[in-house]
């Protein structure tokens, strides 16, 4: 029982990060029907920018640890969001009217450009966040140890996800995004500036990915220029699992994938962890081709 509970918290912490990244995939897909394969690298950029800002601005020294980290995450989100908009301008906007496959190829190219740029700027060996910034308390829930960082990561992810959900559901801009996702032409006829909506989507998605990058850096310490690939792949899987294009779906998919992975590893085999996760994905897609919460049939990319 203790084993089960600990593995559940392990899975939820990783799943929270998957979910944050998955939101970026799912938002872009929802509006443009495009899988932004460079999203994992935007996540990596977030992690590296966080390291640079942390080291160069001395944030935590000026406004205390908690405040410093809060500002750090905000700044990284802003910067990565801007990079996301630039990415759209450079790699996707010229291909808006081209066949969808061209944009996918362009996305893969952008991914390669990003990861190699990071390597050239920061070097190929792993980089390390300064240590001792974060609290290392361990909570005891029913006598079982839960490190406080686990809770903070999960809570931050949940707050960001719920905030996004409310933004999409309750605000005018959110309604415009949903409208553009359903039918761009009709949205345009209703007076919605679809280009602005796309820009906004390319800001919010990468910003959330960047936040996940900083959280990974702060919590796990070590970052490297290839880590976006694995996280990106897992988050993409999570988005599909929950139903791509669907925001609550990405959250559920991310958390579920994290838990499936850790349970599969714990009770079946570590070496087969990824295989188990993908097997579950296939099973779910056979039973529900639109993913768990997907409403419409996902179109081919």
């Amino acid at each position, binding site marked *: 029982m203790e084993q089960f509970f600990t*593995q559940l918290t392990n899975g939820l*912490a990783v799943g929270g990060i998957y979910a944050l990244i998955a939101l970026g995939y799912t938002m872009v897909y929802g509006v443009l029907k495009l899988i932004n394969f460079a999203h994992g690298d935007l996540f990596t950029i977030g992690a590296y920018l966080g390291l640079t800002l942390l080291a160069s601005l001395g944030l935590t020294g000026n406004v205390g640890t908690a405040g410093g980290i809060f500002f750090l995450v905000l700044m990284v989100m802003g910067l990565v969001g801007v990079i996301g908009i630039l990415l759209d301008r450079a790699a996707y906007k010229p291909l808006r009217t081209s066949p969808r496959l061209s944009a996918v190829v362009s996305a893969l190219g952008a991914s390669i450009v990003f990861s190699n740029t990071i390597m050239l700027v920061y070097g190929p060996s792993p980089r*390390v966040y300064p240590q001792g910034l974060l609290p290392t308390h361990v909570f005891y829930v029913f006598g079982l140890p839960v490190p406080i960082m686990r809770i903070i990561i999960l809570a931050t992810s949940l707050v960001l996800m719920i905030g996004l959900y409310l933004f999409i559901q309750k605000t005018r801009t959110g309604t415009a995004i949903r409208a553009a996702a359903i039918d761009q032409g009709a949205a345009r006829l209703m007076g919605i500036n679809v280009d602005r909506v796309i820009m906004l989507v390319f800001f919010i998605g990468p910003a959330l990915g960047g936040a996940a990058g900083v959280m990974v850096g702060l919590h*796990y310490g070590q970052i490297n220029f290839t880590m976006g690939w*694995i996280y990106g792949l897992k988050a993409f899987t999570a988005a599909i699992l929950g139903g791509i294009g669907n925001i609550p779906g990405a959250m559920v998919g991310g958390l579920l994938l994290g838990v499936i992975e850790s349970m599969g590893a*714990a009770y079946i085999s*570590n*070496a087969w962890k990824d295989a188990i996760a993908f097997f579950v994905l296939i099973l779910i897609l056979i039973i529900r081709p639109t993913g768990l919460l997907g409403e419409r049939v996902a179109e081919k990319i």
Partner: protein
Amino acid sequence: MKKIVLMLIAATFLFAGPAVSAETIKIGLMCPLTGSWASEGKDMRQIVELLAGQVNEQGGLLGKEVEIVVADDGGDPRTAALAAQRLASRGIVGVIGTYGSSVTEASQNIYAATNTLQIANGSTSVRLTEKGLPYFFRTCPRDDEQGRVAVKSMLEKGYKRIAILHDSTTYAKGLAEEARGLLADEAAEIVFFDALTPGEQDYTTILTQIRRDNPDVVFFTGYYPEAGMLLRQKMEMGLDVPFIGGDANNNPDLVKIAGTRAAEGFRFLSPPVPQDLPSPVAQDFLAAYIEKYGQAPGSIWAVLAGDGFRVLAKAIEETNSTETEAIADYLKNELQAFPGLTGMIDFDQKGDRIGDVYRVYEVDADGNFILQK
């Protein structure tokens, strides 16, 4: 003036060239002077040239001067094949080198076809000496040697419940299975044997399982980035089990990733770093090397090239011959407990070095790697 210089150069080629070569004993050195291992190759060259200079000061070998003929293998199998052909046609007694296993492998058959003796220094791949080539030797240990030393060191510490963790790469899995095979005959139990996925950030799932299985020690055969993450997360979880790692952990980045507090007490296997070589021979050599080049050699592999030169010189002297057959026979059958720079050197019939080259290192409170006696 120009003409005179040209004539002098021509004269050197015409007369001095052949005259000198008849008077010298040529020993080849194949090393990576370019490419990603260039720093290793530079050290190899400096070491072998330093040792050859010392031999020449004492009158050379068989009354002749020793001449080192260097060829660059670029750390690349194709370049190595060309370098080997060039060296083999230069009338050398034997060749020392090289560093990478795949590079050595590309040159092996060329030397074998020309009956040239080869003493590799950094090529640890098991299969190099399993081909039955009569004139191939190496001064470095084989990959399977490491498993033996790991098992020995764990048993000496009295560990009974052993967890083995690898990362599914050929090297790490091979080492893990080697250790498992050796432990099967011992009074120890393997309570955990599994692989992690390299490149991930979160290994708490696997650490939670290790906690459940409650081993006395965890043998991790993978590379330093994962080892660093494991150590760090192990500390964060409050899991108190000693870790021991393979030689892919001999990298200071390990401590950076784990943090000094989490890395303290981590042990790993590695051939000794040059500064830790114990014998007086090695100390004299290091002093001479530092005096000439200003700093100690970077790794043990280059020093092993020096040992290659020293056993070859010893064999030429003892057999009073430069015949490949006689030298190889001497190295395999007569050379015993030769005091090398890296410890005692013996060769078995395959040309592998016998004896423990691997040492155990432990990370201290400041993150330094300390050799365990």
